[in-house]
Structure formats: C-alpha cells, structure tokens
C-alpha cells in the first residue's frame, strides 16, 4: 500500500505518495520543475541537472529524488531560477545550437527553456566545438552539434532482443552520442520515430520525411514550456 506523506514546496503544504519522484509529485500539484533528461516511466538519469531543487536546504535532482515525509522543497527561488538559467546557457555554449535553422525549432525543449528563463546572451564563453553529423544510417540523421547528452535515446530505444541502438562514446569533453551502425540498418519505423520524439532537441532527426506542423504552429510557439503543468494550479 502506498503511504501518503506531507511535504512543502516553497512553503505551501501538500500531501503525496512516498517514494514518488519529486518532479512527478510536483507536476501533479501543478508545479513545474523543468526537465530535459527525464521521461516518465524510464529509469531516471539525473544527468541534465536542470531539475535541481533544494530539499531541506540541500541541492538535489528532482528527477532522482524520491519523496519522503516532511521534505521542505524549494523550487521557485531566485537562486534556483538563476542556476537553471545558467544550465540552459551552458548547454547553448557547449554545443552548436542555431535555432533559426533547426528542424526542431518550436518543438525543442532546450529552446523553450531558453525563452522561459529569458536567456539573452549566455554568460559563458562559447566553446564552438567541432562535432560531426552522422547521416550514415538509412532512417536517421544524428546531428551531434545539438546533442545535450540527456541519454533518453540510450535508455529508451532498444530492439526486440533488448539491444541498444544508442550509447555514449568517450568521456568528459570528448563525450558523444553514437548510433549502432549494424542495428541501424534494420531499425523499425516505429523506433525511428520514437527516437526523434524522445530527443528533447534537434539531434535525432527522421530522414526523408517532411514536418507536418509548420513553424509558428508548434508546441512552444505560443505557450511557454511548463504551461500545461501550471494550468492545473490556476
């Protein structure tokens, strides 16, 4: 049986199921904690750190921390908002993101967070790192300039025997995402679409298919990211 516990977010009291992940508990209460690597139902990676919140005064990742009784969670504070903005800026300087020419523009979570946190000019110097584009597989283009290493594709896209299509390669600053050349040849239509949809940015793109929804009518073109969750609170 699930145990109901009390907790607070930004001083307001709530009740929730013990053990549930903080980002999911908050979403149920109409409180938006941004995520880039999290995907409901998939083992949390805790890699993008954008969901950082303070729990009883300590920084924790909201996507990997289970709810405990009497947690005092801070989410909407100037300190935390600035850190989230910094992480978005950092992702922009680390990769090479040119929104106006990106196929995912308007459907991109990173871009949408840039707008939400009103990023103007990143405070950090650009890295301008050279990265490859891998278009060798029949169904997908891997635009590595845009990868933010969220590991969604790594965790979610498997073949019938459970083999991985995607994995990391290298470490640290040499980290890159790679698609298995052999498996990619027989990748199903379903998996190809799933991979593109799971990608929060424009790194994984379906080849030879046009985009049904034009720019201007996409997910985040008129509403800020997180609005769907915050609506519950209104």
């Amino acid at each position: 049986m699930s145990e109901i516990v009390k907790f607070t977010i930004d001083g307001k009291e709530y009740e929730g199921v013990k053990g549930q992940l903080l980002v999911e508990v908050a979403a149920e209460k109409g409180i938006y904690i941004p995520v880039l690597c999290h995907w409901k139902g998939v083992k949390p990676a805790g890699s993008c750190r954008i969901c950082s919140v303070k729990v009883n005064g300590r920084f924790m990742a909201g996507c990997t921390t289970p709810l405990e009784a009497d947690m005092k969670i801070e989410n909407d504070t100037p300190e935390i908002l600035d850190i989230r903005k910094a992480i978005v800026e950092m992702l922009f300087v680390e990769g090479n993101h040119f929104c106006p020419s990106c196929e995912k523009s308007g459907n991109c979570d990173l871009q949408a967070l840039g707008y939400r946190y009103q990023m103007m000019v990143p405070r950090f110097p650009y890295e301008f790192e050279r990265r490859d584009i891998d278009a060798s597989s029949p169904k997908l283009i891997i635009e590595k300039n845009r990868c933010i290493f969220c590991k969604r594709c790594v965790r979610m896209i498997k073949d019938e025997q459970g083999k991985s299509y995607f994995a990391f390669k290298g470490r640290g600053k040499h980290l890159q995402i790679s698609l298995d050349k052999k498996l990619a040849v027989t990748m199903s239509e379903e998996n190809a679409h799933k991979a593109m949809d799971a990608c929060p940015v424009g790194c994984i793109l379906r080849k030879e298919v046009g985009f049904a929804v034009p720019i201007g009518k996409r997910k985040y073109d008129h509403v800020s990211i997180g609005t769907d969750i915050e609506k519950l609170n209104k």
Partner: protein
Amino acid sequence: MREKVISIVQSYGKNSGRLMDILLSVQSEFGCVSEEAVSLIASELGISEVDVNQTKTFYHFFTTNRVGKYAIYMNNSVVSEMMGMAEVVDELEKQTGVKFGQTTPDGLVSLHFTACIGMSDQEPAALINSVVFTQLNRDKVRKLISDMREGKPVESMFSEYGDGVNANPLVKSMVKNNIRKAGPVTLGEYAVGTSLGKALGMDPNAVIDEVKNSGLRGRGGAGFPTGLKWMFCSKEAGEKYVMCNADEGEPGTFKDRVLLTERANMLFEGMTIAGWAIGAKEGVLYLRFEYKYLKAYLESVLADMRTKNLLGNNILGKGFNYDIRIQFGAGAYVCGEESALIESSEGKRGEPRNRPPFPVQKGYNAKPTVINNVETFCSVVKIVEQGSAWYKAMGTEESAGTKLLSISGDCEKPGVYEIAWGMTLNEMLAMVGATDVQAVQVAGPSGSCIPPSQFGRKIAIEDLATGGSMIVIGKKRDLLKDVVMNFMRFFEDESCGSCVTCRSFNMILTKQIEKVVAGTAIRTDIDNMKAWSQIIRKTSRCGLGQTSSNPITTTIENFRELYEARTKDVAYQSDFDMNKAVADSCKVVGRVPNVHHE
C-alpha cells in the same frame, strides 16, 4: 585473431558483466581493441557494438589503434611536472622522432600521457607496458630508447629493485616504498591471521560494534563512519559483497600503493573480517590498472591465504566461506567514486550512480555492498586485534586513530608517513624537511590550497580533512600555471561527462584559468569564476563535480593577489589577437601583420 577473441570472451563465461576483463585481455593480447575485435566481442556477448564501445572508450588504457611494442605512458600530473616532466617529454620526442599521442612508423614505440600513476614521491615517472619507471631524466630516456631499439624486454631495462616486497621475484620493480614514518596501526607490527581468528570467534554484530566504537572513518577522503556503513549493510537481507577501493587516483596520493605492496595480507584479512561482519561470501579488490605490476604478487598472497585456510571454505574451521577476486580498472579517475567503481566492476562505463539507493542497499550486482578504502580495511585489522579503546586513544576527539599521508612536492623527504590525526601543517612541513613553502595542497586537486598563514591548522577530519594527498608547493612555483591550470585540465579530462554541469563547467573553468595565465583576463573574470564555481558545486551529481572547482575557489580565496597581478582592471579586453590570427596568411603573401595597430 578471431579464435583468440572468442576464446577470451568464453573464458569469462560470455558474461557481459565481465566486459572490463575481456577488454583488458584483448588490449594486452593485441595492443589494441580494434573495431573488428569490438564486433566479435559484441556478437559473442549478444550485445550491440555501441554497448561494447561505450565501455571501451570510457577508459584511457583501451585503444582502437595498436600501441607501440613499447607503449610509454608518461605521468603528467602536477608533481611529475614540478619534478621535470617537460625535459623527459622533450627527450622522449627527440629520441623517438614522434610526438606524444603518436607511434613510431615502425610500430616500436608509442607515447601517451596519463594522469597520476601513484608515484608522486619518485617523479617524473612513467609506465612502459605496465612496468613502472621512476625518477626519469634525459640520460635515462636515451638509454631506454636505445634498449628498445635493441628489442630488450622491458623488465631488463633496469637493474636495481626497490625495497621490501618491491624486490620480491613476483614484483621485481624499481618502485621504492619511501616509508618515512611507521605508526602503530597500518604500518605497525602485524601477524597474519591473528585478528581474523579473533573476529571469527566473535558475533558479527560484536565485530561491527568494535569498529563503530573505534570511531574509524573512511580513509579514502569522504570520512564516512565505517562501523555505521557496515551496520547498514548487515541489516540488509540476501547475498552481499565486500569491495575494496584500490583506485587511488587523487593526484599526489600513493599510500595505498605502499599498503598493497607491504600489507597485502592485512588488507585481505580486513576484507575478510568485513565479510564475516556483514555476511558476505565474496570480496572484490578493485585495483587501478596503474598498479598492474603488483598483480602476480597479490594473487600469490591470495593463494597463500587459501592454503593457510584464511580464505576459501570453512575459514579457520569456523564454518565461514569467503573468497576474494581482483578486478582491474583501466584508467579513469572517477572510478574512485564508489558507485562509479561498482559500475566499472560490472563491465560498464564508470559513471556515478544516482542516490538513493546507496551501495549498502543496492551495490555490486544490485546486492548490498560495503565499499571501503585499502587503508580502512587495514585499520580494521588492528582495531579488532587491539580493541577499539586502544585505537580511539590516538588522534583527536572527532578523528580517531592514525592516518597515512602521501607527501610529495618540494620537500627533502617525500614518502609515506603514518601520523596521528591532529598534526599541524607546520609540524608536517618540519617533519618532511620543507622550507620556502608557498602553499600546501591538502587532499589533492579536489581539496584545498592552503597558504602559510594557515599552517597552524590541524590535519583532521574536523579541520583539514584529507584522503592522504599532501603536495608541498615551494615559492619558486607559478601557482596558477603549474598547479591550478594543471588541476583544472585534469578534471576536464577526468569528468565522466554524464552530468552536464561537471562536463561543461570544467571545460569553461579550464578556459578561464588559461585566460588568466595567458594574461588576457580582466578583474571581472575572477568574480565570474568564483560565482560559476558555485553552480558546479551545488548541482553536480557526484563528488568529482562538487569539488572540481576547488583549485580555483581556494586559490582565489587564499591567493587573490596572484589573480589580480595577472588581470587588468579594465571593463573589456579582447582575448582574440587579430595579428596572431592572420600571421600565417600574412606570411604567405609576404606582409607584416598590422591589423588595428595602435
């Protein structure tokens, strides 16, 4: 090749959990793990090639291209640089005619850099085909390369062996122990098996209580109370594991190397006591690849203990079954983080796990696991033998017992010292014969850079905590260039990269310190570095990211004048030099670069 690779995979039971061992065997057999080998391993294990590659490319001792018949891995850690690495590098490149990162056209020699190899008391040092060469200089390099041209075996390229077990026929190494001060615990008198016999006569909970009462705290650096860790694990149900973290990678630390050499029995005995206490049947020693030269010896010690019934079935007739195996790493600093170490032992990338669950709940193979440092297990042996009161009487109120320090850098007597916690830095510096000291780097790059005004502070968990690395930095050193920049480049290389802040901020901060050293930074850059360091400290997943900005923050705090002397007090300064950028093209057309000349 095909048959060999397949037989290697089969020798590990086609178990992808042993991927590290498979890759290590292939690398050592063929001098590389080629794409063809990756493909074979993947198909034998029934996993995809990207999954083999993700592990392979994480560790820097695995290479896609064949390394030279003699693969020289030069240590480029801070102390190696301080002790003259640049000259050794220069001579190596001169003698071989190739640059670092390359192999001679005949395939004879390849040159590589590697992070700290645990020889900071005898630098500059390098590994050549896993054999350690210490205190290198130009003359020695010339001799080495000429020996290689003659095709001599690496083992025959030196004649003098180090002291103690280093001279054992199974080690035959030139490494020196440099034990300068032996204390009563880890380097004191020791009789094999006494403590284990006593422990097996006690109730497991009583053993845990003894460790708890001793006040022993983890010796790897984090300082978690050992008895508490054991108690948590003992309360979990089912199969359990004991793991020993022998991946000391913090630049400047080498005390575990000395324990592994001189106290291998004691270590294994400590791991066995832990197994009895928590109810485990298997122990794993995770040993850094840099210490591969100790492999044959350590295995002989294990075999000897089995013969003496100190390991194996029905140990000392008490009905306890327990054994230990050695798991090698393959070059990754982050694997010193306990959950990354577990991942690595399972054949995966050494990426730290999210907590909870903690290893004591869900560790190796998803079973409850106690992980302790080499020195911690050795300390347990004496605690059980002599009693917790004996142990607690040493050290300070909050830091009980003794601590091994690895002291290196600008001092007369670098080496290993077993001291009681509570010694001041001043006392330590007098002990090692250090004068004209600019700073002491306490606890390695992830620790603090301490100025002379604070040399009265104590070495203790409650004041200056340390896993053992103590680097003395003399006044002649350029602190920002020789030390801080080296440390930041180290973290930039060693971040696993899976969490954004650690991967990216270490790159950003490294560029910033390079800018300061190059003289193109301005005052606001100093404050920016300080502010940005807070973000990585607060939001990174593991200890690596949380502490990797320490070289910058502690030197800004304690040596701000060095930063101010190298930065201009102006609102803006371009770090882009146009004249330099067009130098090459000007040369081609025969012009003198003169863009925006003032």
